[in-house]
């Protein structure tokens, strides 16, 4: 096993690991910006079915990294368990948290990460979203002792889909990749249907854009 490396480990907090953090974060931020994720309208279009870029970029990234990690693990270059140990499942709070992050996403126009990109691009609404995330997270921490039972509910430890399906990680990553292609074709169809319906509506009124 060569990976994950010790030198840049997240818990090392050495100059090398912190410099790595800034470099990887900069690459992350740059790609998000180039994807259009610093622009609220581009992000929320996912939820109005007019532009499914968020789904395309996110799902392609998940497939790329899933194939990469499981392939490197299969040939013995990556200790997959050393990475997956950091991703335990707390089922119920994760579902509740997902609903809230999705709701907050359409309300604010950003997710916690893309709001940082928007703020760095000069968008005041992005900066306010960052401030909101800070306030919400701190407020939750204050109240967490009162909801501690729910906070730790559905604690299943490390549960991974390939274990549930009794498949090698690489096989499931390949299946997800094939499924993604089907989903992308479907997403394109939905966009065209919504655009056609919109065109039919605006043809009788004043055309906009």
């Amino acid at each position, binding site marked *: 096993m060569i990976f994950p490396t010790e030198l840049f480990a997240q818990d090392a907090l050495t100059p090398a690991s912190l410099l790595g*953090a800034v470099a990887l974060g900069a*690459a*992350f931020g740059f*790609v*998000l910006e180039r994807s259009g994720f610093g622009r609220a309208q581009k992000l929320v279009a996912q939820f109005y079915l007019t532009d499914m870029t968020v789904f395309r970029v996110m799902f392609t990234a998940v497939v790329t990294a899933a194939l990469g990690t499981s392939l490197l693990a299969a040939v013995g270059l990556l200790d997959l368990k050393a990475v997956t140990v950091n991703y335990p499942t707390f089922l119920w709070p994760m579902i509740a948290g997902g609903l809230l992050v999705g709701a907050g*996403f*359409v309300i604010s126009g950003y997710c916690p990460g893309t709001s940082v990109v928007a703020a760095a691009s000069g968008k*005041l*609404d992005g900066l306010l979203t960052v401030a909101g995330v*800070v306030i919400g997270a701190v407020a939750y921490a204050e109240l967490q002792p009162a909801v501690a039972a729910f906070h730790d509910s559905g604690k299943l430890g490390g549960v991974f889909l390939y274990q549930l399906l009794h498949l090698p990680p690489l096989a499931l990553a390949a299946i997800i990749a094939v499924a993604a292609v089907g989903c992308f074709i479907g997403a394109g169809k939905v966009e065209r249907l919504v655009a056609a319906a919109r065109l039919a509506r605006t043809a009788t009124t004043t055309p906009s854009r």
Partner: protein
Amino acid sequence: MTRDPDRFWNPYLAGVALGLVLLATYLLTGKGLGASGASFRLGVATLQAVAPAHVAAVPLMAATTEDGSPLRYWLVFQVLGVVLGGFLGALTSGRLRGETLKGPTFPARARWALALGGGAVMGVGAQLARGCASGQALSGGALMSAGAWAFFLAFFGGGYALAALVRRQWT
């Protein structure tokens, strides 16, 4: 070459690029990318400056002060990188501009309130879920974590459920 602020990368190529950044992060650091954890720590650090005893008494906050300052943390430096990368991306694409993104007829103050309020809702959600779209859906999702995929589905569910209610801010 003229810069067109409305031009973005092809979403599939952007997705591959994002996936490769994530893969490099797993390989080099043993863990994925994130965002909301750094925001939380920024808040705790601010609170610690004025009320250190209170921070020590709140379990989720106390857990961030093991190395002294809550800001002594890998993810905080990674998000500093996101600021830098986002800034450079916007600068080189012609998208760096001080403005509020909203629909032409929607009042700016109302948009600011929605941005702040929506952010707060996400702050709560990300604490519950141990991560946000980056730390859970993307980083946990690519490792095929069951909880991350449950989060991913719920995230889209929450977005679609509320979308119609807040659409006016874009008109």
